């Protein structure tokens, strides 16, 4: 980091927070603070939805994922456009016409208080842990890269988020997201251009793409069906559709975005904008990772990308032999890459690919042995290592600034939605039903500060040295989304099901997800399908049973 990078980094942070504060001014009623007075245009909502979903750790790790595992992660997003179409046709008009602040408020109108409370509790449990992780994960990476104390990075990011979220509410969050997405796109395009321009003079762009393909990094679509493989065409089209329906249809952090729309049409357009833009965007980010891989075919990568782990590794007795294996394998792989580039017939190409794979296996083996000594996966550091070592001065500061604000965007979305649910579904529903607007506005700001502070404390205490915990908490959402989706499907489409049937169905769905996760090796995307289907089947069965009983006894049906 040069002085100009620091200037760019801080200038971007100051600009973004100031802009958020400025755009969020005038949020002096609950309606304006939580729903921006329902005045938001589709493009602002659409970009904000995209920014909230694309957390910093996604931005950091996605190119690294392509570097190690190829581009098949893009299939994870194939269900998103399908989900957006379904939600535009169903959830958007239903939520708008119900005139609700939260998705869970609708459940009491449709079912009863206990179903609303159960789903509210489910949301709060899953999101409160994730808000800490959304702050801790990028803080760890940025503190390593910038050399700052972890606590400082965490508190700085958390405090800035609290400042503009508690001050300007969702309007500040949304407009800050818009600016951020514009800069993210620019930074990504720059990163790709620079990665390609840094290739050796005799390697053209077409050569680079062919080499990435030969290395198996351009595996964007895999058609084989495997229950245990989390990224195939089928998990993408089926499992991911359920996950995306749950995330965008039942998670308040997303629902709140499109509830701010000035009309049903504007909210629909915001979702459909994501449907069209998201898959190509993820493809593009993964393609950058594939190009970074090609770049490191000709420039020797470090044995381990994590800078601190690399320092520790260099002090071990095993390091010299590991480094020698790594260097030899790198030289062999580079030679094989050049053989493949110069091969003009299928036989020569096949021989070069075999030579390449052999060298790649040797490199992977040395890397695996190094990771065994360092005890920490370095995938999240691949792209940042490329950025900090090879991007021009000024651009490094911009990219790191973008990562900072991507983290802030995700966290602001989390704490804003947590505060909304806390005030609307808990405080107003169960503790103080008839207070003034001014009182609820004050409560919303206090709740925002509370959840922001909670995220800082959680991240500071658990973030450092608890890598396994972070991975575990990231799975928490998948434990609950299927159940939440099942309840909303019943609410939207199955009129015969009452509150008690939905409530029992939700508990059965949750039990099924826990059983699927503990007793099978099923990929986590399928948990969403299992949970949703069990909720619906059990609720329908109870509904039919109680209907028959009520017909026999003459008592009311369902609940």
């Amino acid at each position, binding site marked *: 980091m040069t002085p100009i990078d620091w200037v760019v980094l801080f200038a971007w942070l100051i600009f973004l927070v100031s802009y958020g504060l400025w755009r969020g001014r005038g949020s002096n009623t609950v309606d304006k603070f939580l729903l921006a007075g329902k005045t938001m245009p589709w493009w602002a909502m659409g970009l904000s939805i995209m920014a909230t979903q694309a957390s910093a750790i996604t931005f950091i790790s996605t190119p690294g994922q392509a570097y190690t595992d190829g581009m098949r992660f893009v299939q994870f997003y194939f269900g998103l456009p399908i989900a957006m179409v379904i939600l535009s046709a169903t959830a958007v008009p239903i939520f708008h016409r119900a005139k609700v602040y939260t998705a869970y408020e609708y459940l009491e109108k449709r079912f009863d208080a206990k179903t609303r409370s159960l789903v509210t509790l489910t949301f709060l449990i899953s999101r409160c842990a994730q808000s800490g992780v959304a702050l801790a994960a990028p803080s760890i990476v940025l503190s390593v890269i910038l050399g700052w104390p972890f606590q400082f990075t965490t508190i700085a990011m958390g405090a800035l988020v609290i400042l503009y979220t508690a001050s300007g509410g969702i309007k500040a969050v949304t407009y800050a997201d818009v600016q951020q997405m514009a800069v993210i796109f620019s930074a990504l395009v720059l990163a790709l251009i620079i990665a390609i321009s840094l290739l050796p003079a005799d390697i053209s762009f077409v050569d680079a793409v062919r080499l990435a393909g*030969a290395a198996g990094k351009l595996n964007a*679509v895999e058609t084989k069906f495997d229950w245990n493989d989390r990224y195939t065409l089928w998990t993408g089209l089926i499992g991911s559709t359920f996950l995306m329906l749950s995330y965008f249809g039942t998670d308040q952090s997303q629902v709140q975005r499109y509830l701010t729309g000035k009309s049903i049409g504007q909210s629909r357009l915001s979702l459909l904008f994501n*449907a069209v833009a998201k898959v190509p965007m993820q493809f593009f980010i993964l393609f950058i990772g594939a190009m970074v891989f090609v770049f490191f075919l000709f420039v020797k990568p470090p044995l381990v990308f994590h800078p601190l782990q690399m320092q520790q590794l260099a002090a071990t007795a095993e390091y010299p032999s590991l480094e020698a294996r790594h260097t030899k394998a790198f030289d062999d792989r580079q030679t094989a890459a050049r053989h493949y580039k110069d091969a003009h017939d299928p036989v020569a190409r096949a021989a070069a690919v075999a030579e390449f794979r052999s060298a790649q296996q040797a490199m992977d083996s040395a890397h695996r042995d190094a990771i065994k000594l360092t005890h920490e996966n370095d995938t999240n550091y691949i792209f940042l290592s490329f950025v900090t070592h090879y991007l021009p001065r000024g651009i490094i500061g911009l990219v790191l600034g973008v990562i900072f604000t991507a983290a802030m965007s995700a966290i602001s979305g989390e704490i804003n939605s947590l505060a909304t649910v806390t005030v609307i579904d808990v405080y107003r529903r169960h503790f103080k039903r008839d207070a003034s607007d001014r009182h609820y506005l004050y409560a919303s700001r206090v709740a925002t500060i509370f959840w922001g502070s909670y995220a800082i404390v959680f991240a500071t205490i658990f973030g450092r040295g608890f890598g396994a915990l972070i991975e575990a908490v990231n799975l928490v959402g998948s434990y609950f989304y299927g159940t939440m989706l099942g309840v909303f499907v019943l609410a939207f489409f199955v009129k015969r099901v009452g509150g008690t049937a939905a409530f029992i169905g939700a508990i059965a769905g949750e039990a099924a997800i826990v059983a699927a996760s503990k007793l099978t090796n099923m990929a986590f995307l399928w948990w969403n399908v299992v949970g949703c289907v069990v909720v619906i089947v059990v609720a329908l069965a109870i509904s039919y049973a109680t209907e028959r009983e009520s017909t026999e006894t003459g008592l009311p049906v369902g609940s």
Partner: protein
Amino acid sequence: MIDDPNQPQKPILDEPPPILGTWPRVYVFVLIYLAIVIFAFYLFTIHFRP
């Protein structure tokens, strides 16, 4: 005010889409677009497969 019956309620607008005339046509367009994108990615995958 939250849920204040004395406050004038904003009407819920449900206007037609800016393109293609009706929302169902827009939905079909998005799904066809997805199919084309996936097919293009599939061709991309098999073209560059070694």
